């Protein structure tokens, strides 16, 4: 049986661009049809912006790779029209177990907060994530949206100009030249775009390697996340077992620094390691094996005039905590509405600098979290190991030590504190919805809040008056009028009002709060709209 990652999903076909004397100029070209590139393209096409995706391959991701998709990513995927099948296919789990040496030290239940349309996260192979996004691209194409994926189109050279970029693209039928007003590089941690432009990628490489194996097995392990520190089957190292759909299990085994990567990847070396972990009599089949080195790094700037980097091409983190694909999705979520305003002439190019400010902030937060997890999982000194082991020993007996155990902090979206797009907080409301925050979902009877805030500037009023529509310098803002009575569970009140009796929120197209007050004040909100679109 062919696996889905072995079947071409966007096979090469000749483009008319290859048969014209002068290069065709597109609005936006995206390099890379991974999760982030596809998200960027769908986001732009849904807003009517013409976009072409170039990928050097013609298939979805080889092997599972990213497997943990967080709630924020699912919310973004909902806005892009592809979230539902991901949640339906994905595995949801809440229970985790932590083992140290030969024993289980404790078990936890994440008890996700109620009142959200999406689960806290799902486990899903990256190839499914990409396949659902490609399905969405096809659906948009049928509706006539200006979006195209070109498989086996490898960018070989990039020329940057003041108001466009020029690309040399290699195909099975020779090369051609094509141009774009804007280029979004989503070509991964090893980004050829970054290399061709001679740009930096600095950070820290940890002296540690991990073997990742995805195995297919009929095992009666429960749907839980199991993490081992210093287990008997991988002495002095760590291990992780996590379930994916279709009976596929993700296993991470820490290998240490001085290893021969090619040798360790061979099945005859992998299988004994897995048998030591799973038991001699467990039947399994290897689906995919890879080895990675822990590293945390980012570009100094994500925007280089007309070339914008998003996802792993801009920043790379160690994978524990699911901050790779999840943070990349937040990149495109942040970028695409801004690019739309700039392309439509409703904001100046300087608005794109806020993408840099906000997403560099996000990347730094992810790198910090990831570095801390890495320091706990792989202690760098004798004393850091002593302290780490003390935390684990205490966690078996005393609850207080459990929050100190760090086997990866699961990705939560970044709050853009201090962003130049925020207005000063003018509501005595909950901290979690202060300006810069991603809007938390809330139930509204049989519906949910977030789908009502999708893709446009919104004035959310809760028990407050305001005009149904305001326009400020070309930017239209429509009102969503709610009352605390719309949610009998009172989550809307708890998340957006706190002790206040009314509130008005200005919410950006990416569902982040730009401004809030206890009532509508025309001047204040017009000012806030200008700020949120980079005009002040």
């Amino acid at each position: 049986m062919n696996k889905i990652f072995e079947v071409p999903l966007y096979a090469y076909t000749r483009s008319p661009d290859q048969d014209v004397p002068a290069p065709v100029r597109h609005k936006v070209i995206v390099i890379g049809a991974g999760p982030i590139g596809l998200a960027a393209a769908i986001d732009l096409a849904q807003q009517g912006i013409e976009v072409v995706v170039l990928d050097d391959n013609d298939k979805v991701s080889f092997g599972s790779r990213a497997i943990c998709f967080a709630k924020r990513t699912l919310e973004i995927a909902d806005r892009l029209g592809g979230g539902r099948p991901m949640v339906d296919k994905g595995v949801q789990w809440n229970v985790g177990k932590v083992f140290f040496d030969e024993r289980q030290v404790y078990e936890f239940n994440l008890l996700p907060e109620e009142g959200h349309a999406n689960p806290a996260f799902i486990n899903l192979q990256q190839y499914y994530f990409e396949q659902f996004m490609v399905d969405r691209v096809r659906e948009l194409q049928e509706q006539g949206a200006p979006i195209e994926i070109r498989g086996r189109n490898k960018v070989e050279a990039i020329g940057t100009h003041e108001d466009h970029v020029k690309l040399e693209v290699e195909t099975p039928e020779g090369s051609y030249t094509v141009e774009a007003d804007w280029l979004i590089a989503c070509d991964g941690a090893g980004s050829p775009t970054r290399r061709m432009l001679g740009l930096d990628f600095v950070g820290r490489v940890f002296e540690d390697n991990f073997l990742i194996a995805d195995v297919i097995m009929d095992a009666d392990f429960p749907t839980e996340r199991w993490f081992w520190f210093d287990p008997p089957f991988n002495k002095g190292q760590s291990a992780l077992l996590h379930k994916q759909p279709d009976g596929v299990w993700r296993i991470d085994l820490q290998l240490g620094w001085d290893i021969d990567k090619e040798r360790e990847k061979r099945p005859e070396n992998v299988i004994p390691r897995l048998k030591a972990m799973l038991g001699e009599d467990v039947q399994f089949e290897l689906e995919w094996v890879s080895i990675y080195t822990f590293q945390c790094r980012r570009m100094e700037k994500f925007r280089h005039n007309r070339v914008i980097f998003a996802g792993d091409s801009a920043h790379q983190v160690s994978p524990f905590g699911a901050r790779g694909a999840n943070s990349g999705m937040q990149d495109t979520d942040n970028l695409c509405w801004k690019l739309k305003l700039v392309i439509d002439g409703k904001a100046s190019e300087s608005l794109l600098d806020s993408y840099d400010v906000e997403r560099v902030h996000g990347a730094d937060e992810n790198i910090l979290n990831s570095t801390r997890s890495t320091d706990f999982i792989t202690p760098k000194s004798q004393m850091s190991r002593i302290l780490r082991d003390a935390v684990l020993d205490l966690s078996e007996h005393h609850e207080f030590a459990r929050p100190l155990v760090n086997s990866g902090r699961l990705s939560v979206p970044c709050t853009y504190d201090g962003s130049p797009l925020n207005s000063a907080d003018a509501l005595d409301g909950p901290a979690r919805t202060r300006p810069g925050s991603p809007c938390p979902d809330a139930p509204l009877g049989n519906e949910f809040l977030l789908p009502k805030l999708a893709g446009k500037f919104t004035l959310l009023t809760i028990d407050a008056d305001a005009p149904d529509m305001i326009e400020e310098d070309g930017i239209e803002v429509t009102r969503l009028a709610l009352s605390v009575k719309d949610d009998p569970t009172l989550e809307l009140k708890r998340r957006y009002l706190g002790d206040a009796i009314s509130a008005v929120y200005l919410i950006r197209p990416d569902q982040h709060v730009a401004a809030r007050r206890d009532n509508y004040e025309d001047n204040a909100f017009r000012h806030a709209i200008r700020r949120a679109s980079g005009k002040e």
Partner: protein
Amino acid sequence: MSDLILTPNIDDADDFYADLLAAHEGLEKADSDALNARLVLVLANHIGDRSVLTQAIRAATLADE
């Protein structure tokens, strides 16, 4: 913000010190180190106040103000 107490604050200080030594008695170096680490974590959790803990870490480094 609470201030870290850096004046004598333990009743029967000699007894406390003797208890501390007794807990380590007969332990190998590695086990003693582990005990100390656990003790630091237990005490830190009891204090809880992050600003006091920051002051305590600083005081323990013997760095001058």
